[in-house]
Structure formats: structure tokens, C-alpha cells
């Protein structure tokens, strides 16, 4: 992949993904970024390896008496074809959405059911469990996203187009982390629509009355 990625996953997010402690919404953004970024893929392997090293040094719990025999019985009962279909990692494709995201959307970008949220901006909330939410955003070129601050961290991955805010320019593959104390105003670059995937730890708070009303309607 030849894209230039300038903003990578922070260590804490990558470690949380590898430790299996992130909410599903953030897992999805991390897996989508790694699909586009070889550097973070290599870092993921390193954090996985810490898990492996810890397993080596773990205590040994006592197994039930027929544990091994029960496992062999499980192995005999496996439907090999079904198991294969379930466990093969998604293959790479050439669409806009990386494979892990496509399985949530049910296809590539043309399968997304967008809902208008005002100012030309559209979004699609994806179904996940846990304390965080995740949504796709489509911001027309040149458009500004309303001023907002967070009551939790927000992680945004750019999939197409680009936006800029006080922290810099974010193009395809780039990830921006915004902490709860940041109020920022991202502006999409003129030209093609900016498509982003954003996970939010807790509901967003918009500054100003109208945006706050909009927030109720938008569920963001």
C-alpha cells in the first residue's frame, strides 16, 4: 500500500486492542487503521508478543481430570468447513472501506445508509456493544463540523478526503485522538467528500444551544 500515513495509533490504543480491553467501537477503528498501515501492523505484532510472553510466565490453573480427552472429543466433532468459513481473516479488497468495517456496513461505501445531520454532514451509526459508540461521517469538501468538545476520548480515522484542525492535517489512513478537554473545529479540505470513522467514549457535547439540540436528534 503506497499511501502516506502521518498520524498513527497511540501506544495506549494499540496495547488496549492487543490486550483485548477496548470497547468494540475502538476495536473497530484500530482494526480498520491497521488494515491500511503496515507500521501499526508491525507494532500490533509486538504488543501481541507481550501477551504471548505473559502467557509463558502465567500461573498454571488446575485442569479438570479429563480435560485433554474432552478436547480430543471436541476436535472430532468439529465441522471443518464451517469452522474455516468462520475463522478465515477477511481478505484485502480495493474498495474505500477496509474489510473489518465492511462487515459492519454490509458492503462498501455504496451500502452505507447515510442520515443527514445538518450543514451538509451525513452520518451512519454502526451497531456495536459497550460503553462507546462508533459512526461513519461524510463531510462535503470545504465544510466545517460544528464546534464540539467530548466528555470522553474520541478517535477518528480518515478513509477518504482530508480534514484539518488545530492539531494538523489528516488524510486517508490518518488517526486523530482527541481528549475530553479538547474543543476542536475540523474543516474538510475543498474537493472530494471527507469520509471518517469516529469512535467516541461518551456522548459529544456541542458548545452552543442549537448544536446541543441537534445533538439530541443526532444521537452523537
Amino acid at each position, binding site marked *: 500500500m503506497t499511501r502516506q500515513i502521518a498520524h498513527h495509533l497511540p501506544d495506549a490504543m494499540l496495547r488496549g486492542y492487543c490486550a483485548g480491553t477496548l470497547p468494540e467501537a475502538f476495536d473497530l477503528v484500530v482494526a480498520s487503521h491497521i488494515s491500511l498501515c503496515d507500521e501499526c501492523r508491525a507494532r500490533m505484532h509486538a504488543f501481541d508478543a*507481550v501477551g504471548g510472553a505473559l*502467557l509463558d510466565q502465567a500461573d498454571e490453573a488446575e*485442569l479438570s481430570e479429563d*480435560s485433554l480427552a474432552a478436547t480430543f472429543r471436541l476436535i472430532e466433532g468439529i465441522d471443518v468447513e464451517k*469452522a474455516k468459513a468462520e*475463522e478465515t481473516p477477511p481478505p*484485502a479488497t480495493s474498495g474505500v472501506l477496509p474489510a473489518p468495517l465492511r462487515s459492519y456496513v454490509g458492503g462498501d461505501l455504496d451500502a452505507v445508509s447515510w442520515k443527514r445531520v445538518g450543514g451538509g454532514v451525513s452520518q451512519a451509526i454502526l451497531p456495536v*456493544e459497550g460503553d462507546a459508540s462508533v459512526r461513519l461521517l461524510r463531510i462535503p469538501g470545504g465544510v466545517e463540523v460544528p464546534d464540539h468538545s467530548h466528555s470522553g476520548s474520541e478517535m477518528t480515522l480518515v478513509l477518504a478526503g482530508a480534514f484539518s484542525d488545530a492539531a494538523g492535517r489528516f488524510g486517508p489512513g490518518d488517526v486523530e485522538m482527541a481528549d475530553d478537554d479538547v474543543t476542536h473545529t475540523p474543516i474538510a479540505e475543498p474537493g472530494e467528500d471527507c469520509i471518517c470513522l469516529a469512535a467516541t467514549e461518551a456522548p459529544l457535547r456541542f458548545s452552543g444551544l442549537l448544536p446541543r439540540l441537534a445533538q439530541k436528534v443526532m444521537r452523537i
Partner: protein
Amino acid sequence: MISAEQTRPPAWIAEMKAIRDLRDQAAFASLFEYFAPRVKAYLIKSGSAPDMAEEVTQDVMATVWRKAEQFDPARASVSTWVYTIARNRRIDIVRRNRRPEPEDLPWGPEAEPAQDEELALQQDAERLSEALQALPEKQRVLVERAYFGELTHSQIAEETGLPLGTIKSRIRLALDRLRHEMREETG
């Protein structure tokens, strides 16, 4: 000069290949004897009831057998691979959706991974284990909790009575130390 360290074969690779190529039950039994109690301990530490942990451990080990052909020694040590299977199973039990996985890298023209790549990766994994063991107890415990305890930063603080900021910086310090030792070892 070749040290004993360098000539020792990487752990469990031979057994994995015997399982993959020969469906060797004896090789699986020794792999099971080593990993199953550790996987079960990991699941219990992560909050699983012992009965549930036993069931899931058997399931994880059956998956090790079933997915043996997907094991790639140029990408991961056997311990790391087993860890990722156990972690994913733990997540899949509590969620409706499977854990989001990155898309697979397209295979290059050379299907067979180079032997030296495989060896280099396996040695890195062993160095990482040694570096982890060499960490001061306090730091090692924090790294372990971050992976095994399913504790958030604030939960770790509750358990140890340490304020959040200290916890965050200690985990960071632990990882920095790890990275530093890795660099010294490889440099």
C-alpha cells in the same frame, strides 16, 4: 561463536509442525500440557468462573489443533499465537460480533517464508520474554494487569490505591523499560 542460546530450537515450533503436517496427537498432548493450564489461568484472571474457564480452555486448545495450518512461525511465536486465540475467544463470548480483525496482507510471490526470518522472529520473542522477566516486580505486575486483569486505568488505581496519574506513568515506564531492554539486546 555460537552460544547455546542461539542453537536451541524455538519453543513448540516442532510440535506445531507435527500437528499441522501429521495431525500428531502426541505432539498435541505435550502442547496441551504446557498451554492449557496457562490459558485457563489467564481466563480466570480475566474474570471467568473456573467452570467456564475450563470449557473455554478446551475450546481454545481445539482451535489450536484446527487452525494449525494458519500458524506462521515468521509472524509469531507459538505462545503469542495461542495467546491471540485465547484473547479472541474471551472477547467473542461476551460480544455478539466477532472481534474486528485487520484485513489479511495479500500474499507475496514467495509462498514459503525464509528460514532466517522465522528464526529472527522466534529469537525476538524469547528476548522479549527475558526482558519482561527482568523488569522490577512492581512494573511487571502492572504490565500483567493491563493484559490479564481486564482492568481499566481507574480500576487498577482502586486495586492498588495509587492515583491514576501514577498508574498511567508506571505502565508507560514499564513499556519504555521493556523497549529499552529489547533495543540493548538487539543492538
